[in-house]
């Protein structure tokens, strides 16, 4: 979870999406200050994500400040080379077997984590336990229930 001025590790796509959001919100603020109705407001269907920023300036400013902090302190996750490329680190796509079922995770920083989409935070108990391991390793996470993650494959895109 983030604190002020901490480093945010983001995938290239994750960073691009945040930059896009930041630019859209900045244009909303600019047009709001000029008293114009931004084009982005014209259809709620087209831009539902920005619906909430239509009239709530506080919300807009809070989000802009948050994004500024993230963008200022962000670092793109780099693809490792050599020996390191076989180990689980940020950005790794990891195939695992858990209780006989296969699953695939992408190891991400806290900002991009979304387990429902298979994006596991490197700061979660499972993320922490898997970091640094490689294919063939069996990682047991036990606090208090023992769960064995058999690492099948580690790759980077």
């Amino acid at each position, binding site marked *: 979870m983030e604190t002020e001025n901490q480093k945010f590790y983001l995938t290239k796509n994750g960073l691009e999406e945040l930059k896009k959001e930041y630019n859209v919100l900045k244009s909303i603020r600019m047009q709001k200050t000029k008293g114009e109705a931004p084009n982005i407001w014209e259809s709620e269907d087209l831009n539902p994500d920005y619906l909430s920023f239509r009239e*709530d300036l506080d919300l807009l400013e809070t989000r802009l400040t948050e994004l500024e902090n993230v963008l200022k302190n962000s670092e793109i996750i780099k693809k490792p080379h050599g020996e390191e490329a076989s180990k689980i680190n940020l950005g790794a796509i990891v195939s695992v077997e858990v209780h006989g079922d296969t699953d695939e995770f992408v190891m991400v920083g806290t900002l991009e984590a979304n387990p429902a989409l298979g994006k596991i935070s490197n700061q979660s108990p499972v993320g922490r336990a898997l970091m640094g391991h490689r294919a063939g390793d069996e990682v047991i996470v036990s606090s208090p229930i023992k769960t064995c993650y058999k690492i099948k494959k580690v790759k980077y895109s």
Partner: protein
Amino acid sequence: MSSFIDFFHEVGKLKDTAGRGWILIGAENPASVTDHSFRMAIMAWFLGKKKKNINFEKAIKMALVHDLCELHAENLTPYDHGHLPKDKKDWPAAFDKLPRFSKSKKLENFLKKEKKEKKALLKITANMPGDLKKEIISLWQDYSKGSSREARFVRQINRLETLLQAFEYGKESECRPFNSWWIGSEEQIDDPVLIECMLQIAEKFYHDGKISKKKTKRKRTLKKK
């Protein structure tokens, strides 16, 4: 005022809407959506105080509205996506495993859920004054996407509250907490304050692989004033 009363009446129905997961595991008195959201709001407040930069008001409101959509959107668990064995006898074993899906299925489930919930929320807030409608939708969207730090915090509290409830069921009945709740929490929770809370819940309720069995039967009763 009339639209508020209609809204309050509708929201009240969540008091009788039991959490789907609790029905599946056969809990005697399954907690309702309201029970869950109320305790989440309390947890967001108290645990949020341990964080430096959490906007409590936003986090509490988010906890209160995050499941409003369940008035009209079907509440589905991951097991409902093809992971419920036909024979009920096999359900306990299934609940000890977290359902696993392919990358495309995860995305499909996520988008389907988001679409259904948004449609439900627009229906629920249709007659609300514009500012409140926007605030509710904005809080839900933020929560759903995990955009703000409050949203990421409250999403994890959602998981933590469910974990606590699962342990409580284990304490009050033969309905043990299934391992999937724990595994899911370990994959989802990454906030240090919430990880600490998660471990303390385990310490309090789970000793040497067994649930602490000091019975605290929970029943909905009328209290005389």
